[in-house]
């Protein structure tokens, strides 16, 4: 009986998205917020059932290999941060204004969240693809809703590359169906042939498509523009959540264990390249975007050496990056432009939250960023790859310098923004930022339990 | 029983034995004399500036009294570490003492560095003793204490410091503080664990210093510098005694030299107060004006040269007796003794005897104010009454003869303007040569060229005497 909540996880935000445009402008964000809070409750409830094993829900009563199946497993536990970050992003988005604050904007956010929920609980590859499209289209729309210059082009480029990825993934789904005669994930895994070109093509297609969605180097080129120009609340969702869908897709890919070597080096390259690019950025949000590339690299690398570590980092990074983007949004909102030199002097709480989240992003213990990074480092060492472990830590050092640099810009340097500054961000912005920043530390303190929760 | 084991760090221990009392006795009397002398020798407050820096007397007393305390602490130290503590404290106080002299900046800084290096050598030696390697440890200890005492190869700070410090400070340095170094060397050499080779080394160094210092002293025209070099010589004599094992003679001579040199430095200080200079050529005939100073200086001089009818003269004779059977050592010792005679002859003759060269330039040494000066001198001379050892009359006569000869020679040389007078000390340009106007410059002729060549030769000789003696002694000792 309890598992009826499983479709509700997907249905709630999507239904909310449908209703949202009908609401008045002021009511829309409260509606979205309420819906997402409800979704969060559902997600928490379902996650609480996880220790008894994965939940399965056959749609329409058809048993799994034939009907459509929804599965809530360890990876789906990511639904909790998805719901949380989305929920917190909604009031933030409403406060920043612009198209994203309209009922339509809220609807797109809700739709995207629903897409992500569906993506995570999809039990078969076709459903997976459908929800991937839903969330991708919402993402394009969210980027396009920015008033920033260049946002349109960024969204269009995002769309083009996302479409390529979608097509590749769709082809792979078809290939997989012809190979195994099934689309159900568990079923496909059981019927998978031992080798052969078609299987490799299918796996390769999935990996390439999802790496593009995850923005691993060198397939990251769409990400910085899209994330930097999107409204900050959207950036938080994009960087914290949507990019992770690519990684979750990778984790769902059959036959991935043959590609560990590739993932390892793509991840390492992504980690280093992202950090290096981040080091030379002059725009805060762009730097954060490249930092995402770096962290995705870490996660991809982690898939090869320590899946549990990678999963933990997916969760933690979502919270960390969301907090960072929201703080950046608060700075920009207060400054009224991207000229944020010295804005932090008048916003000590936001700056502190930014600093704490930055520390977590670097992976300093005992914050959330450390747990996954540590497990992946240890995994690399145990796999006999000290070089990879060193790369992981080198990436952390580089990122540390990036964050320090922007902390200097925000809090130590004087600039035009200092005079503009009118004190702390409004509560609708500040509270989400603080909540997420506190959560980054809290998650770090219970890292061991978290790892045990998502572990095998 | 005093041993060379360092004590627990952070815990000062003290012990009293007869040797310590001996040194303490000297310290107290000479120190008291110096303090009394200083009451008058330094101007009081109200001259200029504020109380912190403008009161030389207060400043001196504030330095000298702790110095005496530290010296007492050092000689009553119950272990090596405690001794070291006071040694370092003395180094700092000594720096402050020297620094109070006019134009003594360079000399004081040099003093400090020498003491610091000495302290580090000492520390190294003590650490080695703590770790159980007493052999090299003792060598380092002797070197470290030697710095403080003014032992020959490590005496580089001494002439400048003694001559630039104010006279009472010089008296303290030479009469009291230098003796702490001697005290340390005594403790090391009298320890049964010390190697025989160290005794021989100290003996060699002592003899060399005794002879070399006397000759250098003879070449000085600055009374304080003369006394400084004489101190090097006398410390050499004491070290000779310690090296050869003549403990009692050495300790007696410590008392003699400490007191006598204290008196002489104070006397020179009194002369400086009166005449405003200590350049020997500008002094003369002061015995009439300063009879007490003269008498006490004479007493001190006689004690130094081993005048047989004085109780204080026995130490030297004892040391001499211990040297029997070492012909080279005896020869060097004779040279040193004769040199000492010549030096005190020169001092007494140039300062107190002869024609009155310079009229009084200062009011201080006249009239009512004189009493503390004389009293100070007298107190400092008290220890001279104590050491009781039979002196050696024939030997004294011989040294007297030799000394007279040397004195005569030196006079002759100085008549032809021997550069031995002004050896260069320190860095080039560090110490300006005082101009001596009463030696008219003769036009350079053939004779002049000859003299100059002779000058150069003798200067080279004097500068290399130390080396010469060192080699000679080493060779002879090896033969013996």
């Amino acid at each position, binding site marked *: 009986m309890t598992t009826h909540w499983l479709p509700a996880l997907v249905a709630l935000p999507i239904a909310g998205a449908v209703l949202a445009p009908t609401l008045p402008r002021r009511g829309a964000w409260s509606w979205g917020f309420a819906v997402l809070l409800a979704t969060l409750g559902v997600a928490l409830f379902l996650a609480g059932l996880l220790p008894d094993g994965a939940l399965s829900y056959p749609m329409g009563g058809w048993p799994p290999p034939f009907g459509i199946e929804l599965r809530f497993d360890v990876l789906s536990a990511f639904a909790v941060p998805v719901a949380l970050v989305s929920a917190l992003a909604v009031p933030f988005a409403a406060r920043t204004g612009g198209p994203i604050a309209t009922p339509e904007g809220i609807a797109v956010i809700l739709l995207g969240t629903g897409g992500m929920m569906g993506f995570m609980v999809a039990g078969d590859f076709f459903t997976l693809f459908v929800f991937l499209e839903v969330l991708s289209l919402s993402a394009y729309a969210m980027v396009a809703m920015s008033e920033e210059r260049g946002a349109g082009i960024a969204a269009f480029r995002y769309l083009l590359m996302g479409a390529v990825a979608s097509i590749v993934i769709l082809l792979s789904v078809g290939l997989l169906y012809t190979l195994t005669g099934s689309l159900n994930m568990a079923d496909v895994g059981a019927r998978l042939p031992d080798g052969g070109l078609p299987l490799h093509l299918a796996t390769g297609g999935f990996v390439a498509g999802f790496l593009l969605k995850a923005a691993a180097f060198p397939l990251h080129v769409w990400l910085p523009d899209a994330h930097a120009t999107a409204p900050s609340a959207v950036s938080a969702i994009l960087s914290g959540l949507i990019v992770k869908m690519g990684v979750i897709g990778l984790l769902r890919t059959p036959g991935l264990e043959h590609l560990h070597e590739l993932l390892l080096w793509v991840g390492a390259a992504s980690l280093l390249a992202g950090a290096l690019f981040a080091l030379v950025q002059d725009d805060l949000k762009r730097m954060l975007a490249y930092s995402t590339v770096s962290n995705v690299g870490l996660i991809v690398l982690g898939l090869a050496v320590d899946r*549990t570590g990678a999963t933990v980092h997916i969760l933690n990074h979502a919270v960390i990056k969301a907090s960072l983007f929201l703080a950046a949004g608060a700075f920009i909102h207060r400054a009224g432009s991207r000229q944020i030199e010295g804005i932090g002097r008048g916003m*000590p709480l936001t700056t502190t939250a930014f600093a704490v989240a930055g520390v977590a992003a*670097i992976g*300093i*213990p*005992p914050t959330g960023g*450390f*747990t996954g990074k*540590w*497990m992946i*480092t*240890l995994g690399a*060492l145990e796999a006999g790859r*000290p070089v990879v*472990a060193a790369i992981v*830590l080198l990436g*952390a*050092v580089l990122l540390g*310098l990036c964050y*320090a*640099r922007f902390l*200097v810009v925000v809090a*130590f*340097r004087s600039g035009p923004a200092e005079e503009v500054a009118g004190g702390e961000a409004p509560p609708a912005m500040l509270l989400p930022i603080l909540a997420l920043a506190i959560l980054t530390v809290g998650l*770090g*303190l219970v*890292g*061991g*339990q978290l*790892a*045990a929760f998502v*572990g095998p | 029983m005093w041993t060379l084991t360092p004590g*627990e*760090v*952070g*815990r000062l221990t003290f012990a009293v034995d007869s040797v310590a009392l001996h040194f303490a006795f000297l310290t107290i009397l000479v120190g008291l004399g110096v303090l009394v002398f200083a009451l008058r020798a330094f101007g009081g407050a109200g001259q*200029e*500036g504020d109380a*912190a*820096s*403008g009161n030389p007397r207060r400043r001196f007393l504030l330095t000298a009294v702790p110095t005496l305390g530290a010296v007492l602490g050092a000689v009553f130290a119950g272990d090596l*570490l405690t001794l*070291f*503590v006071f040694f*370092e*404290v003395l180094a*700092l106080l000594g720096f402050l003492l020297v*620094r109070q002299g006019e134009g003594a*900046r360079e000399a004081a*800084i040099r003093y*400090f560095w020498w003491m*610091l*290096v000495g302290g*580090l050598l000492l*520390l*190294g030696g003590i*650490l080695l003793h*703590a*770790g159980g*390697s007493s052999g090299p440890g003792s060598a380092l200890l002797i070197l470290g204490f030697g710095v403080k005492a003014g032992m020959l190869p490590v005496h580089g700070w001494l002439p400048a410091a003694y001559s630039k410090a104010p006279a009472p400070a010089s008296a303290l340095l030479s009469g009291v503080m230098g003796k702490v170094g001697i005290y340390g060397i005594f403790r090391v050499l009298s320890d049964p664990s010390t190697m025989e080779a160290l005794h021989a080394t100290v003996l060699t160094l002592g003899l060399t210093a005794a002879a070399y210092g006397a000759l250098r002293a003879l070449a000085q025209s600055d009374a304080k510098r003369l006394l400084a070099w004489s101190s090097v010589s006398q410390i050499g004599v004491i070290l000779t005694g310690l090296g050869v094992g003549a403990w009692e003679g050495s300790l007696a001579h410590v008392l003699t030299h400490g007191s006598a040199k204290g008196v002489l430095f104070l006397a020179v200080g009194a002369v400086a107060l009166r005449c405003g200079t200590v350049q020997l050529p500008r002094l003369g005939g002061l015995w009439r004006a300063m009879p007490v100073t003269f008498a006490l200086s004479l007493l001190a001089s006689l004690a130094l040269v081993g005048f047989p009818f004085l109780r204080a003269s026995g130490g030297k004779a004892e040391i001499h007796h211990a040297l029997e059977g070492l012909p080279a050592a005896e020869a060097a010792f004779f040279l040193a003794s004769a040199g000492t005679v010549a030096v005190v002859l020169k001092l007494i003759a140039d300062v107190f005897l002869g024609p009155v060269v310079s009229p009084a330039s200062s009011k201080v040494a006249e009239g009512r104010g004189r009493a503390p000066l004389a009293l100070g001198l007298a107190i400092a001379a008290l220890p001279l009454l104590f050491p009781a050892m039979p002196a050696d009359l024939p030997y004294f006569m011989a040294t007297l003869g030799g000394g007279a000869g040397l004195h005569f020679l030196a006079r002759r040389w100085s008549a032809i303007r021997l550069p031995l007078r002004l050896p260069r000390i320190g860095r080039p340009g560090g110490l300006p040569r005082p101009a001596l106007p009463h030696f008219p410059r003769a036009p350079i002729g053939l004779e002049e060229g000859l003299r100059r060549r002779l000058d150069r030769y003798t200067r080279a000789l004097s500068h290399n005497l130390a080396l010469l003696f060192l080699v000679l002694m080493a060779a002879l000792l090896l033969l013996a």
Partner: protein
Amino acid sequence: MELAFLEIVPGLRLHLRGDALGTLFAATAGVLWLLVLPGPRRGRRYEILLALSFVFVLGIAAAGNLLTLLVFYELLSLAAWPLIVHDETPEALAAGRRYLAYVLAGSATLLLGLGVVTMAAGDVDFGTRVEFPGAGLVLLLAGFSVKAALLPVHGWVPRAHPVAPAPISALLSGLMVGTGSFGMIRVIQLVDPPPLGILGGVSALTVVTAGLMAIRTDHLKRRLAWSTISQMAYVPLALSVLHREALAGGILHITHHAFMKGGLFLCAGLLVHHLGIRRVSEMAGVARRMPWTMGAFTLLSLGMIGIPPLSGFVSKWVMGVGMVQAGAWLPLVVLLTGALLAALYLMPIVQTAWFDAPEGGREDDSGGAQRTDPPPLTLVPVLVAASLTVLLGVGAAFPGFPLELARLAARGLGG
């Protein structure tokens, strides 16, 4: 006394534990913090981070396993950064950037080392002996040497000190560098130590080179920073001897050096604050204007050189005895050379401050220069530091004083 909680990564818990070494370190930190607390108010950020840093130092002192030590170590590193760049000048920001680069690189090395150790030995509690590959030891020592300011990785020290506010310089020199040495001691006590010749060689080189650099540095705080590098390299030097007494001396030196160098930096701060003097060459005759300050400075300098009976002497003595007992001659020579170098870079300051004529004035001219000693309350920390130097030196053997604690703490090592 132990307390374990919060498993922050699988298999590793935060773990607090009190022992002699930690107690001594914590006590040192406490006293030093009390010394730097007075002084001008510098704003909320400064105060909060100062308090946080104290908490983190206590965490380091009370860490019961390697992970906890590293956690607080990194937190301290980060919390110190805004303090270093507090003045927000371009130079300060540049120095802060360099500091962060060094410290983060060090932290990364440490984490790698912790990884190696964890792989081989799991959760490692202090007070036990474990075995892990030599690579772990090398990585951990290398990581800690960044904070300990050993030679090739010392670069942040002479840059960060001159730009930081004086109390922060005092803390950096007094404790921050000490945390590196502290970590090294903790690590060495975990294992059956192999010969540490390389560590000894590096430390010796650091002592001498940094001493020479200090001599030729004119900027007062930078000279003191070089002095810190030179003096604190004694600790790994003593550690490398692998002798109990030498290690006790090293541990003691962390404490004694903290107070002395802290006091010296506070004096330097007073000079900057009240007279605007930053360079040694400007200090001629300054003692006539600030006799109390420079009196404390002089005493602390003498202590730093190791003049008995001041505290610097005690720690060097204990180290020296251990070295001699272990037959380590080279470290002993380095120890004495370091003292000579300390005199060479500190005594000229004292000499010029007390005895040289101020610029444009005559020697012995004190009428022109006004006595401008800071108000008594500001002087208190400096004077307390100076009297601590005397007290910890003269009373070194008292029970419960640092010497006893240091000997207790060094018990774990053979010899």
